[in-house]
């Protein structure tokens, strides 16, 4: 088993269990489509990060729309989502949603049962890693997936550390295309 070093060195993994690094958007799309109750969690960096002239949160919205994936708007992202015409399914702050997710019995943001795949976009990498650590250790019943341009060791599935924003943008665009396409 081998593991990749995260971009921000403060997040270096100290352990044996690290994320599967995936670079193929279709593989990500497949994992998302396979999920029964996916959830997309948006963080505050989605409001301050721009990619290809768009705000990161807009990519989040596009991804969510493809399969009508419910959104949890953390921090103060809800306001922007409303401006974008999107009503998030919930607006817990990051730790609060994690605190719910780790309970197998929780009913989920749509009261249909806990989620089996949780996607994260737009978090500080250190806070993100700590949150993913909680789920890795204490929520064996779900998988986690990161959409940011850094490798997250504590996630179940992670993107690599992209050297260029273009690579990241290309991945997200491909992901959206793949999610839209009918075949699983």
């Amino acid at each position, binding site marked *: 088993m081998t593991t990749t070093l995260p971009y921000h060195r403060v997040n270096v993994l*100290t*352990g044996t269990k690290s994320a599967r690094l995936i670079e193929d958007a279709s593989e990500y799309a497949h994992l998302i489509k396979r999920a029964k109750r996916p959830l997309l969690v948006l963080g*505050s960096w989605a409001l301050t990060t721009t990619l290809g002239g768009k705000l990161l949160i807009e990519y989040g919205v596009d991804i969510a729309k493809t399969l009508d994936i419910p959104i949890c708007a*953390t*921090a103060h992202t809800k306001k922007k989502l409303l401006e974008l015409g999107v009503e998030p399914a919930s607006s817990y702050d990051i730790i609060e949603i994690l605190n719910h997710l780790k309970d197998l019995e929780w009913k989920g943001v749509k009261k249909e049962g806990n989620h089996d795949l949780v996607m994260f976009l737009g978090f500080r990498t250190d*806070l993100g890693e*700590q949150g993913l650590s909680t789920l890795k*250790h204490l929520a064996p019943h779900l998988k986690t997936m990161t959409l940011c341009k850094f490798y997250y060791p504590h996630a179940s599935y992670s993107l690599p550390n992209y050297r260029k924003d273009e690579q990241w943008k290309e991945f997200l665009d491909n992901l959206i295309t793949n999610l839209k396409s009918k075949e699983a």
Partner: protein
Amino acid sequence: MAVVTKKRNLRKDTVNEIIRAEDKWEPVGHTPMPELPDLRNWDMRLLKTYKPFYAPMCDLCCFCTYGKCDLTGDKRGACGIDISAQQARVVLLACCMGTAAHGGHARHVLHYLIEKHGKDYKINLGDQILVEAPHIRTVLGLKPETLGDLEKAVEYVENQLIHCVSALHTGQEGSALDYESKALHISMLDHVALEAADIAEIVGFGYPTSVADTPLVGLGWGAVDRTKPVILLIGHNPVTAISIVDYLNSNGLQDKVEVAGICCTAQEVVRYSDRAKVVGPLSRQLFFIRCGIADVIVTDEQCVRCDTPGEAAKAGTALIATNDKICYGLEDVTKKEAGEIVKEMVSGGKQTLIFDPEKAAEVAVRVAMELAPKKNKVLTKPEEVPDLAKDHKLCNMCSQVCPNLLPVGDAIEAAKNGNIQPLVEVFNKCIGCGKCDHECPRHVPIIKMMQAAASWESWNMRAGRGPIMDVEIRKVGAPIVLGTIPGIIAIVGCSNFPEEIDEVAEIAEEFAKRKYIVVLSGCSAMVAGMKKDKEGKTLYEKYPPNFDAGGVLNVGSCVANSHITGAAMKVANIFATLPLRGNYEVIADYILNRVGACGLAWGAYSQKAAAIATGCNRLGIPVVVGPHSSKYRRLYMSRKEEDDWTVMDGREKKLVDTEEPSPEHLITVVESKERAMVTMAKLCIRKNDTAQGRQLKLTHYIALHKQYLGTLPDDLHLFVRKATDIPIFFKKEVMAYLEKVGWKEKPVLTLPTLIGTYPSEVPIEAVVH
């Protein structure tokens, strides 16, 4: 029961002797000088609602030679420990370190002052402060009258510490909850240590007390007059700093030598002399040392960079270490003559260790005056920046090692091309570790470049005032408990901030404007002063220094944090007339259910901060912390919809399911300052609020939520008990919302308490005043 009876008796005798039980100032409650088992049931009750939330920093344990052990999945260590218990254990370790730091500080200061004034030196905090030590009164059951009494409190902390440190050993506690109970216990005692230290300093050094409008003091690296010899104090323990001021005064040098401090020693020394300057918080330590403005650095203890000897030498600054916690491997010259030491330091460039404060003071001043004339104190000018950056290539190693995840590389790139603005932004978010600089393969002097990016204007801070006055408590007690003062906002802790340093001032002002009581301490009290409005006024100039609606006050250094928690206890005692003495459960229960207070440690980094926050939690005060604090590994969180919010109605003596998650969490991390403000407003809500008070609190909660999240809170219905709770201003939309979600009136409650909902020796009557 044989031994337990014996035990209680023996313990009772010992305890009664220590606390002078025969003094009848108040009846002795159920838990004077509690040991680990005594408040365990209170902890378990808290932890039932506010469950530990763990975020491991490491998948492993490496404490013993069986390791490393992998604790992922359902794995256990070689000793049988699981990942949750291991996290709780690490939290207990942090709380023990924090308590020991404060306790050791208190010991050292008391030792020094008792030598000076004697054990029987009276504690007098002025005519406005009669309840002098709410923590010591409540936890020990002792009304401290002398410095010697304060020493008793510290001895008790030491006695409890050994058991908590013992519990960290391999093969001890196996339950995460019991580790938490131990962390809560030692952290309760942390506040006892804080209180003992700050009271000792106030009476022993004669700090101002029983006053609100303490002087405004110079703040900022720009406030330091570098044309004079400069002595830089770093740390927390003021013993040597005070001696330096005394030496200057008694030698008529007070105007000839500049005394400046970083971190809490600065907070301390400005309480003693408003001539002294506050350079800034911990995060400016390395930056300022590298500026080379200081002629002598005097270190004492805690939060002092470990590489100070090397950095001082590089900056051409002399160094004197003065505390047994920080010796740097230096020669102990305490017994040498001052003149000889000065000679060795000035000519030989020797760095020294001097345990005698008076001698260290004399040496510091004489060395500073000899070195200053020879020292060149020119700072980097903006126009020099591109040249300093000339070797830079964008490898981004600096960005990768930045603990605050800042785009340092891009900023240097821009600076190299003549645009310093990105570097200004980086400096404003910089937490000061210097890793970027150290890591640079091309040795670009990043920290030095920041001299040109930093603002050199001078701000101000109101000197710490110590305890809240009884008369203030009398005035605000009712409004706080009824809710007509929406809350006490305590902004404390270190400078490991996630974003701009002036977010703290923003948050403080938001609540001050809304007529909350805003109390600050330590590094947070400094940075709150580092922002000016268009008239050039700081918060301390704009808002009154009173403990009252809309006041903004600085209690002092981190040991003064005990006065913030102490104020909440004094509300229970002075306003609600509940006895404090050995009555911890009743007081904590009162605060949890009735005192709308919320702490914010936006840049907490240290083990001391962990202990202070955990001590607040046992006392029923919720705390909000910033993103970095997720690395403390543990939070106490409820789940508002799922959890049971049943409490006892103290008057009716029946259980009532209030359906109201107030306060919702005991300690939680929030991601952004916007969310922090919304969360803090919510965490000021208490079950005891009157309709009028609840309206006011909801008004702010709703207003902040709309301002930052764009809508009404989606949990608003949980906090509306009756229609009368609905804020007039938002009546229409709130009514509409409540209708939509099918809101129903909630049960009434005359006196909310947890007493009676868990096994305790405290009778319900005890909470009725």
